[in-house]
C-alpha cells in the first residue's frame, strides 16, 4: 500500500477511536434512559461512519459487523422497537466487538469469530423480535437472507470501485451520444431492507460543479450510497452534453435526478452529500409517492442487487421503456415541495433544524510535536530561573523596572507552561469507557449482576497519566467485581439489592487528581487478611494491627486474598503491582473499607508529570528538591523534641506523636551522621497517608517549580531519587523520592518504631 493511503488509513483509525468513544457514550446515555432521539442518532451515525470508512479500505469483517449493528440501531432509531435492558447489553457488547474489530483491522490481527457470531446472533435476535419492523421484509423467512447478502454489499462496492465503477460509468457515457438529449432512468439498488412500499420519498436534484471532480469526489459513490438508503430511481440529464469535439474534459455537463423512497430522513440524505455540499448544486424535495408498486414487477425480492455485479448497460433501455414512461410519478425536475415528514422519523423536524449546530474547533496534532513544545517550555522555565538569578547576581535585582519585568516574565512563563500542559491534558472519559467494558466482561465471567457508575469523566489528566493508569485501574476494577462484590445470593441474604455497584469517579482536589474505585460489596474481611498475612510470613504472629494497617496489607507483594485463583484476578499479580504503578506516576493509593458497606480505593495523582512544585534544599553541599506535596511542615529540632530511641536512632516528639528522624545526608550516602541534631532544620514529610518522617537537612533555599527530567533513561533508577531537574545556575539537582527514602531508610538513623517497620514492610 502506498504511503498516502497508509496515512489516510491511519487517520481513519484515529477517527474510529473518536467515533467509538461517541458510540459508547451514546449507548451509555441511552441505557440510562436518555430517550432523546439525538442520542440514538449519534450512535447510529458513529456506527455508520465506521462502516463507511471501513468499506473504503475494504475491511470486510468490520463492514459486515458494522452493518448489522447499524441495522439494529436503525430499527431503534426509527422508533420501531424500544430496546429493553438486555438489548442494551447486546448493544454494548456489540460496541465492544466493533472496537475490537477496529483494533484488529488496524493491527492486522483477528478477532475470535465465535464472539462476533455470538454478538451477531444477539443483534439478529433483537431484529427478529421486532415484528413490525419496516426495515426488514417480513414476508417470508428467506428474507433474512438478503440482509446477509446486503451486508457484504458496501464492501463489494467499494472494493471493486475501480473496476466496476469504471465499467459502469463508461458504458453510460458511450451510450450518451446515441440517446439524444433525453433523460435516462436507471433503477438503483432496490435494496430489500430499505425499500418500503408506500414510504415517502424525496426528489434529489444533483448537479456537480467541475470542482467536485477536481477535488477527487465521484458522483457514482454518492449515487451508490443513496441507493443503499432506499429504493432509488436515478435519472441522468445529459442534455447539456456538447458534441464530442466541443467537449471540455474538465467541465461538468451532467446532472442527475434521483427519486428515492426511503424511511430515512432528509437530514440523512443530506449527510450523503456532506462532503460535496459546496461543490454542487443540490436540491432535495420531499414528495409523496402515490404508487408504491411501480417497481414490484421488475424487481423480485429475491433478486440480488444487480448494481455492482452486472454491467449496467443492459438494464437501461429496458428501464427506460418500462419504468420511465409509465411512471406516474410527478416529473423529476418539478417535484412538488411538500414538506412531508417521514412518519417513522419522530425526530425529523428536529434534525433538519439542528443541522448547522456543531462546528468542532479541534485540531489533531501529533503527540511528538506537543512533547517538543513541552520540552521547550521546560527549557524556558529553566532559562527564566537562570535569568532571575543572574539579575540578582549582577546586583540589579533591586531596580524596579528590572524587578517588574522579571515578575511579568515569570508570570508569562507560568501561563505558557500551564497552557502547554493543558494541551496534553485529556479527559479521563476514554479511560472510564474502557473500564465499563472491563466491568461488563468481568461481571459476565463471574456471573454477577453489576452496575457500573462513573462520574467526573470530564476531569482532565495528563495523557501519559491516563495511558499508564489503564493497567492498574483495570486490575482494581476486576478486583472490585471479583472480590469486592458478593455473589448475587449473598447480597440478597444481606438484604442488599442483588445488583452490585462499582463506582469509578475522578475529580480535582487541591492540585491533584483524585480517582476513586469503590464497590458496595462486603468490604475487606480483616480476619482473613490477617490470617493470610501471618500464613505467608508477611507479618509476625500476634502483631497488633489497626484496621487500616490490615487493609494496607493488601498492598504487600505476593498477597492475594482469593482462596482459589479465579480466571479474573488473583493471578499472583496483586495490589502491590497496582501500588507500584501508581507510585511510579507520582501518585498515592489508599484504601478504606467498611464491613458490608464496601471498599474504596483512592488514588491521588499529580496533574502533570512534567512539572512539579518543589522545595529546594541543601544537604551536605548538594542541592536537592523535595516535592512540595510531600512536605507537611518544617521543624526546628531542639533538645526538647529530640528523643533518643536506640543506640543509633532518634525520634522527634511532635505534639503527641513520635516521628522517626532521618538524616538525609546519611540516607543518601553523602555524609556520616552529625554529632548533634540540636538546632537543625528538618522537614516533616509524609509521602503516603500513614508514613511520616522528619528529615534533617542543612538548609532550605527556596520554593519553586521544577521541570522534571527523568533519570531512568540516561542512568537507571536510583533508590531515594525520583528524577532530576535543572536549576537556575544550570546545575542538576536531584528530586527526592520521599516515599522511597522513608521505606528504604537504612543504617544508623533507622528507627525501630513499629509504625515505621510496618510502613517499610508495606512499601
Amino acid at each position: 500500500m502506498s504511503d498516502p493511503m497508509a496515512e489516510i488509513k491511519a487517520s481513519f483509525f484515529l477517527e474510529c477511536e473518536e467515533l467509538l468513544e461517541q458510540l459508547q457514550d451514546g449507548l451509555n446515555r441511552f441505557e440510562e434512559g436518555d430517550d432523546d432521539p439525538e442520542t440514538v442518532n449519534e450512535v447510529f451515525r458513529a456506527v455508520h461512519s465506521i462502516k463507511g470508512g471501513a468499506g473504503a479500505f475494504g475491511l470486510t469483517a468490520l463492514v459486515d459487523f458494522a452493518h448489522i449493528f447499524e441495522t439494529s440501531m436503525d430499527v431503534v432509531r426509527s422508533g420501531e422497537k424500544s430496546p429493553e435492558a438486555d438489548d442494551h447489553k447486546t448493544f454494548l457488547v456489540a460496541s465492544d466487538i466493533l472496537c475490537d474489530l477496529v483494533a484488529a483491522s488496524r493491527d492486522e490481527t483477528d478477532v475470535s469469530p465465535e464472539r462476533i457470531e455470538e454478538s451477531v446472533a444477539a443483534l439478529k435476535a433483537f431484529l427478529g423480535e421486532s415484528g413490525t419492523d419496516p426495515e426488514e421484509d417480513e414476508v417470508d423467512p428467506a428474507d433474512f437472507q438478503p440482509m446477509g447478502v446486503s451486508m457484504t454489499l458496501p464492501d463489494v462496492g467499494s472494493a471493486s470501485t475501480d473496476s466496476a465503477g469504471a465499467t459502469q460509468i463508461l458504458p453510460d457515457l458511450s451510450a450518451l451520444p446515441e440517446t439524444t438529449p433525453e433523460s435516462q432512468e436507471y433503477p438503483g439498488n432496490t435494496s430489500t431492507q430499505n425499500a418500503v412500499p408506500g414510504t415517502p420519498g424525496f426528489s434529489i436534484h444533483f448537479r456537480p460543479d467541475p470542482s467536485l471532480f477536481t477535488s477527487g469526489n465521484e458522483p457514482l459513490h454518492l449515487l451508490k450510497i443513496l441507493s443503499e438508503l432506499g429504493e432509488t430511481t436515478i435519472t441522468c440529464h445529459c442534455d447539456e452534453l456538447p458534441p464530442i469535439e466541443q467537449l471540455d474534459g474538465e467541465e461538468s455537463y451532467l446532472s442527475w435526478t434521483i427519486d428515492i423512497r426511503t424511511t430515512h430522513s432528509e437530514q440523512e440524505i443530506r449527510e450523503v452529500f456532506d462532503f460535496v455540499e459546496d461543490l454542487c448544486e443540490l436540491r432535495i424535495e420531499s414528495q409523496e409517492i402515490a404508487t408504491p408498486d411501480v417497481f414490484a414487477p421488475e424487481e423480485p425480492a429475491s433478486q440480488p442487487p444487480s448494481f455492482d455485479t452486472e454491467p449496467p448497460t443492459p438494464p437501461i433501455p429496458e428501464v427506460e421503456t418500462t419504468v420511465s414512461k409509465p411512471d406516474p410519478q410527478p416529473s423529476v425536475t418539478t417535484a412538488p415541495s411538500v414538506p412531508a415528514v417521514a412518519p417513522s422519523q419522530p425526530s425529523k423536524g428536529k434534525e433538519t433544524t439542528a443541522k448547522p449546530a456543531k462546528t468542532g474547533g479541534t485540531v489533531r496534532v501529533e503527540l511528538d510535536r506537543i512533547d517538543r513544545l513541552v520540552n521547550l517550555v521546560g527549557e524556558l522555565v529553566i532559562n527564566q530561573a537562570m535569568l532571575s538569578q543572574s539579575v540578582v547576581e549582577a546586583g540589579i535585582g533591586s531596580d524596579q523596572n528590572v524587578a517588574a519585568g522579571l515578575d511579568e516574565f515569570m508570570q508569562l512563563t507560568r501561563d505558557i507552561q500551564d497552557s502547554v500542559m493543558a494541551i496534553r491534558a485529556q479527559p479521563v472519559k476514554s479511560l472510564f469507557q474502557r473500564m465499563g467494558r472491563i466491568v461488563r466482561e468481568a461481571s459476565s465471567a463471574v456471573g454477577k449482576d453489576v452496575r457500573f457508575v462513573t462520574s467526573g469523566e470530564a476531569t482532565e489528566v495528563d495523557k501519559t497519566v491516563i495511558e499508564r493508569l489503564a493497567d492498574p485501574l483495570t486490575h482494581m476494577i476486576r478486583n472490585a467485581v471479583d472480590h469486592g462484590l458478593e455473589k448475587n445470593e449473598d447480597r440478597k441474604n444481606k438484604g442488599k439489592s442483588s445488583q452490585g455497584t462499582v463506582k469509578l469517579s475522578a475529580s480535582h482536589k487541591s492540585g491533584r487528581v483524585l480517582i476513586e474505585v469503590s464497590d458496595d460489596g462486603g468490604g475487606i474481611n480483616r480476619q482473613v487478611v490477617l490470617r493470610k498475612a501471618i500464613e505467608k510470613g508477611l507479618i509476625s504472629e500476634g502483631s497488633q494491627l489497626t484496621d487500616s494497617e490490615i487493609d494496607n496489607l493488601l498492598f504487600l507483594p505476593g498477597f492475594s486474598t482469593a482462596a482459589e485463583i479465579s480466571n479474573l484476578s488473583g493471578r499472583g499479580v496483586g495490589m502491590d503491582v497496582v501500588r507500584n504503578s501508581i507510585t511510579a506516576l507520582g501518585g498515592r493509593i489508599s484504601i478504606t473499607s467498611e464491613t458490608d458497606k464496601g471498599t474504596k480505593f483512592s488514588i491521588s495523582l499529580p496533574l502533570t508529570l512534567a512539572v512539579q512544585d518543589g522545595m529546594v534544599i541543601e544537604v551536605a553541599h548538594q542541592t536537592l528538591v523535595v516535592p512540595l506535596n510531600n512536605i507537611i511542615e518544617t521543624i526546628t529540632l531542639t533538645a526538647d523534641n529530640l528523643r533518643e530511641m536506640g543506640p543509633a536512632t532518634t525520634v522527634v516528639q511532635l505534639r503527641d506523636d513520635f516521628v522517626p528522624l532521618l538524616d538525609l545526608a546519611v540516607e543518601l550516602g553523602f555524609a556520616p551522621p552529625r554529632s548533634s541534631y540540636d538546632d537543625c532544620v528538618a522537614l516533616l514529610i509524609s509521602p503516603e497517608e500513614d508514613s511520616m518522617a522528619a528529615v534533617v537537612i542543612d538548609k532550605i533555599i527556596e520554593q519553586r517549580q521544577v521541570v522534571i527530567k527523568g533519570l531512568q533513561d540516561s542512568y537507571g533508577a536510583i533508590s531515594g531519587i525520583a528524577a532530576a531537574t535543572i536549576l537556575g545556575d544550570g546545575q542538576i539537582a536531584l528530586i527526592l523520592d520521599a516515599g522511597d527514602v522513608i521505606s528504604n531508610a537504612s543504617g544508623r538513623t533507622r528507627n525501630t518504631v513499629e509504625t515505621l517497620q510496618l510502613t517499610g514492610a508495606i512499601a
Partner: protein
Amino acid sequence: MNDALQDNPADLTEYLSFRIGAQEYTVDIMSVREIRGWTEATPLPHAPSYVRGVINLRGTVLPIIDLAARLGLPPDTDNDRSVVIVVQHNSETVGLLVDAVSDILTIARADLQTPPDMAADNQHRFVSALIIENERMIRVLDLNNTLTTTENQAA
C-alpha cells in the same frame, strides 16, 4: 566491534585517542558525540564509585563515568585538562571523564589486534583490540562492556 573485525580488513576507521594516567585508549569516532570541558557533576546517591554524577548537557541529564575508576586505574586528581567525551552507544548517551584527548587515528581493520586473554587482569574486559601506533600500544575501548556493566551495577 567484533562484527567490525569481520569486515574488509582494508577498511579504514577513525578513532579518537585519549589518555588516562599513563595509558592510551581510543574509541570509534562514530560513537563520539562531542567533547567538552569538565564541570562539577551532581553526585548520585548509592552510585558505584566510578559514576561521578550527572551534568546538564543542554537540558538533558548526562551521567558521567570516571573512566580511570571504571578501568581500575589509579585516580588522577582533577586537573584543568580533564575532559568529558560524550559518547553514544545503543541509544544511551554517557559522558566519559578522561585526562586528555590526544589525537584522531586512522586505522585499517587489519591492524587491530585481538588482545591476549589474561584472566588475572579484569581490565581487559574493557579492551576490544590493540593497536600499535608509533611504537606505542593503544587500547580500543569496548564501549559495550564499559557501559553495559554500569547499567547493571547501577540497577
